[in-house]
């Protein structure tokens, strides 16, 4: 039985470590915040200029001056800090963020990622995605194993315009987890969703990986 969205987020959350500073993308990655292990201190960064993202505010606490990178209203924590966008990306580009979890449309077997231009739709821009994949220490992609039309998304080479070249460290799909120890090594299948076989994964994947 394949993992659902929350289970995928929970699997990605297993990569968190105490004291980590983390940036979470929009969509499934946001759910990682709900899966931080009890007692573990993880600080979430918002690239519009905040460290220490709190939960959504109560209705009477909503503050238009307090939003996340998805432009949603949020709250602050006692340990939060605010800074400008230049400082926020100095942190990201400078390798100070330990981990980012991002969605993707395609990931190649060499760790390229494409997640900013949707084919046939108007280009809205890359936002902070290119900065994140270029700067953060560890890049985890969380995505469905196959597109709605059934096409593999972990593929030999990305067909869509890239967000980053040779940057992805780990891929969590609804079927399996792939990882590589460094950017020179191939990905290896390290885990299967319950009831999913290695053969099924092989069948639904066109990327080359070790198993």
């Amino acid at each position: 039985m394949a993992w659902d969205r929350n289970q995928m987020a929970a699997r990605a959350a297993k990569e968190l470590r105490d004291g980590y500073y983390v940036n979470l993308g929009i969509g499934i990655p946001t759910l990682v915040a709900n899966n931080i292990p009890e007692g573990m201190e993880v600080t979430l960064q918002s690239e519009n200029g905040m460290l220490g993202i709190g939960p959504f505010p109560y209705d009477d606490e909503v503050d238009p001056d307090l939003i996340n990178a998805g432009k949603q209203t949020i709250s602050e924590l006692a340990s939060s800090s605010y800074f400008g966008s230049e400082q926020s990306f100095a942190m990201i580009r400078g390798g100070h963020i330990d981990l980012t979890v991002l969605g993707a449309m395609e990931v190649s077997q060499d760790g390229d990622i494409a997640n900013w231009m949707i084919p046939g739709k108007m280009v809205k821009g890359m936002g902070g995605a290119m900065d994140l994949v270029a700067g953060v220490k560890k890049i985890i992609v969380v995505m469905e194993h196959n597109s709605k039309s059934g096409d593999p998304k972990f593929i030999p080479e990305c067909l869509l315009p890239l967000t980053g070249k040779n940057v992805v460290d780990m891929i969590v799909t609804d079927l399996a987890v792939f990882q590589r120890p460094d950017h020179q090594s191939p990905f290896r299948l390290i885990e299967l969703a319950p009831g999913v076989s290695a053969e099924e994964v092989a069948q639904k994947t066109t990327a080359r990986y070790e198993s």
Partner: protein
Amino acid sequence: MKKTFPDAAAALEGLLFDGMTICAGGFGLCGIPERLIDAIRDSGVKGLTVVSNNAGIDNEGLGKLLRTRQIAKMISSYVGENKEFERQYLAGELQVEFCPQGTLAERCRAGGAGIPGFYTKTGVGTQVAEGKEEKVFDGETYILERGIRADLSIIKGWKADEAGNLVFRKTARNFNQPMATAGKVCVAEVEEIVPIGSLDPDGIHLPSIYVKRMIVGAPYEKKIEFRTVRTREAA
């Protein structure tokens, strides 16, 4: 040297001309210089190149200047949530230069800091790298990005003192800080101007040297793009 002006039109007097480049602070609709945008719209200046992380939404923020076709080119990282933008862009009436968000922030900071170019890993191997100089440092490839300088910066702050020292509030700081430094002149709108000595010298976010003119833009009816809340559990 009085920096405070009675209103946005007065604060912008003599600074606007067709074809100019403007750096605008804000992220989405958070911390945008609304009053100054209105005054720029009313001035009728056109052919603008606007450097801003986003392009507002329909009829809010920079969306107002798009609607009146005063903007010829945007340099932005993300321009979703804007139908008029989409229409003009697809019709080829509006030029758009996409720039990764962190590169955009750094380009404006660099321009304001006298740095005409810097190297970054962001965008290497992507469309963003096309036509840009590459250079290898310690075995890694980087691309050269240019500093941005503008004819004018427009920003939104929270409080300023009469000397022009300025503080921001929460995530409304965002691009206002780097944008303020990139313009030949920076005009700020704030919610309140307080007497000199009211702000902690250790807590100034934007020192007075960057703020040449300012207005009080209050009262503000701050818009929210995505209102997300949680509910209190019943007691």
